[in-house]
């Protein structure tokens, strides 16, 4: 599965990278982030593009699992 590592990146980069990945119509994608703002922004973006998002916290990092609904 494709993984977008957006940890340590300031907005809008985590969303830009997610956007680039979903452009190919990918059905499943994992995005790694480490900031609340990035988590919220990527989640909101993914939802607007029809992906269901599951969030898992591991220490200071978040793993966002995007799945085309």
């Amino acid at each position: 599965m494709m993984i977008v590592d957006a940890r340590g990146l300031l907005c809008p980069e985590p969303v830009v990278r997610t956007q680039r990945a979903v452009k190919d119509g990918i059905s499943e994608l994992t995005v790694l982030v480490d900031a609340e703002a990035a988590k919220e922004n990527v989640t909101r973006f993914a939802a607007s593009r029809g992906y269901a998002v599951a969030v898992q916290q591991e220490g200071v990092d978040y793993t966002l699992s995007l799945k085309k609904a």
Partner: protein
Amino acid sequence: MKQRNFWVILTGVIIGIAALALTLLGNPGNMGFCIACFLRDTSGALKLHSAEVVQYMRPEIVGMILGSMIIAMISKEFKPRGGSSPMTRFVIAIVVMVGALVFLGCPLRMMLRVGGGDLNAIVGLVGFIAGIFVGTLWMRGGFTLKRAYAQSMTEGLVLPIIAAVLMAMSVFLPSLFAASESGPGAMHAPILIALGVGLIVGGLCQRSRFCTVAASRDAMMFKDWSMLWGFAAVIVTTIVGNLILGKFNLSFADQPVAHTDGLWNFLGMALVGWGSVLLGGCPLRQVILAGEGNSDAAVTVTGFVVGAAICHNFGLASSPKGPTVNGMIAVAVGFVILTLVGVLNREKA
């Protein structure tokens, strides 16, 4: 209403009311808040520049940094981070400050000026949006200042501690600092009120991720309109407030701390918009991120302070009479610098 929109709009309304109140209590016209102007005044208070009319240790900024820090700590979002091209950010921050002081205000003050009926600020707003658009083209093209990494608690606390110590010193040892006797630097709300309002606004901005650049940027890049609600809320609140207070004055001429040179109002704010997109947020957002322990943002805020000193030491800042030749040259150089920064920081997708 979505929870995010609620927080963003609430922040916008509170910023608008706070700005009106601070102006009534003594801050300069349409300058209840201005990150650029206030850091410029602070830079003057620290004698980094000697423009006698703009020297004052502004409590609002200190309050915002500490308000953001307190709320971030309570919500477990205080995460020291740093190392994302700090020196490049420092340079971009100087360029952004040049643009802001040629226009005479950061994006937040631009909004407050629009809310006061200052039509020059509308010209600035158009330039700001144009600049943001150029910035988004670079972001789409793979621009990145690379990732930040976790840092120690100490690293994250350095700027908040410096801000708090300077604030305390300015109250208890005022003779150490420069303070304007006339001009905008001499106009200010009572210290404790300004500090308290800063704390509240800083905390709210931390919760809502309020950012004047994100408003247009996210709409352009992702069709995400949520932050625009906050942007609109600030302007609507200040228009209504100024109308009620009888301070709404729709005109180009005779606006407080503003000039009427449309071209340089446009270009100054275009520089601010473009540079802020590269930085990942507007000057206000950088102050809030610095409070959350982001030392790249702390370096950026330091860059603003140094940039303000450069602006006044080398005659780059505009005055109500208009922009200076040096300022015009500096804006042109700023566009060259942002282009170079863009070209040299692209990552292949």
